[in-house]
């Protein structure tokens, strides 16, 4: 068994305005021990008139899809996700967590969702940016893939910093359902694409990312020992 210290930035994309619904990377080289996804930016909750997001309430974080399983993607019919999201806020003691996404009552959802921010009114570029970082171990093997996330968001506005509305820590796990017949085969395929978006408002209208939101993927390390083909087909 051989390992190599092989580290590359495999792709990066950034918004140049506040009209993009998502950032997307495809054709990612999965011949690495670990893929690291890093998003930094913000959701433009004011929406420029395109959303009906109300002020002075909690809003969900970014939407996350991968392996081409999104509307219009090469594996659109496989968009059967499992999502577990966690957050730590100043107005709660320990962490809180939930399954699924806010806009769907089912635990099998068409996308994943991580993060939570308190939206006051307007958007404050200096205080609403956040970072989200995820790892996928063995992104090119023959098993179901999962991304482990962590991140943090700052207080949404100066007036709320240090108060009960501040939100600090986020975490979670995202994956395609590996039992659902529509998604199982894709769940076992390489983690070769990702789309991180601003999510949707309660009416189903896509929200937009703020300007200079950025998504980057890094490949970290290489090993000769990767399960491929139909290894481990039994139990």
């Amino acid at each position, binding site marked *: 068994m051989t390992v190599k210290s092989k580290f590359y930035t495999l792709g990066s994309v950034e918004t140049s305005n506040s009209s993009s619904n998502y950032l997307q990377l495809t054709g990612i080289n999965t011949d690495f021990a670990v893929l690291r996804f890093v998003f930094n930016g913000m959701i433009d909750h004011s929406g420029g008139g395109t959303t009906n997001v109300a002020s002075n309430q909690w809003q969900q974080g970014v939407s996350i899809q991968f392996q081409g399983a999104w509307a219009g993607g090469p594996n659109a019919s496989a968009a059967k996700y499992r999502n*577990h999201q966690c957050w730590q806020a100043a107005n709660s003691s320990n962490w*809180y967590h939930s399954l699924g*996404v806010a806009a769907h009552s089912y635990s099998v959802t068409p996308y994943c969702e991580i993060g939570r921010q308190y939206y006051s009114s307007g958007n404050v570029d200096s205080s609403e940016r956040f970072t989200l970082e995820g790892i996928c171990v063995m992104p090119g093997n023959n098993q179901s893939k999962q991304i482990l996330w962590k991140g943090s968001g700052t207080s949404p506005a100066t007036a709320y910093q240090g108060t009960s509305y501040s939100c600090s820590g986020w975490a979670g796990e995202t994956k395609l359902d590996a039992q659902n017949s529509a998604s*199982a*085969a894709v769940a076992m395929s390489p983690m070769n694409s990702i789309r991180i978006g601003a999510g949707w408002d309660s009416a189903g209208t896509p929200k937009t990312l703020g300007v200079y939101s950025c998504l980057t993927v890094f490949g970290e390390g290489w090993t000769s020992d990767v399960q491929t083909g139909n290894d481990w087909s039994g139990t």
Partner: protein
Amino acid sequence: MGNQQWVLETHIPVNNATSSITFSNNNGQYATNDIGGTTIMSYTNAPVYRIHFKVRFLTSANSLGSSNFYFHGNYSSSNDFTYDYASANTNTSMSPNSAVGTSRDYGYSSGNQQLGYGSMGSQFSNHAWGTAVNDLDGNSVAANSRRRGAWITGWFENHFPDQAGYYPWHYQIGIVTDQHNDNSASAPTADWGAWCIGAGGCSAGPYIDTITIGSGYNFIGDFFLFRGMNGNYQANE
């Protein structure tokens, strides 16, 4: 290719079930730059220890018990730790988008640092509601195949700039499972997964030339030890 500061030091593939693995001689291996020069990965030269892994416990237990997933450095004594966690043991079932709080576990002068309450077995009771499918290569894959099981992803990290720091580790793991059929999952979901985030260290001597990860249950998986160095000592291969 040039030189850079990260090294993938070790990969431990666990294809046959075991209850313990050990990264050994961590500080005696060498980084090699693009002209063949070597730098030993001592505490001083390579102070960051980053472990990423995916693991699957071969049990139906929906919570392993705190000491049934653990790790420690050279010393299996005087370890302190604390972590916030949730599992199908503390939140027996969860409804989508219904927030619940986490619990906390901690220990003092323990034999190891623990995270078992934030873990679960992958042979859970509601596993395998699906049927055999063909993968993209055309192989038939049974519903209960290891290829389709739920995996825990983990991240342990330590920055060791000197040997005086007793509490250098922080860690996070998580697993979300495939419970309930599609379109029938609005009801509470059993065996939904598990998660924890924590920190700890060892006051007996914070030496981590060896790092052992173990469990009271057998497991399979892939474990990687990365090192972050304080200079560009490693060729990008």
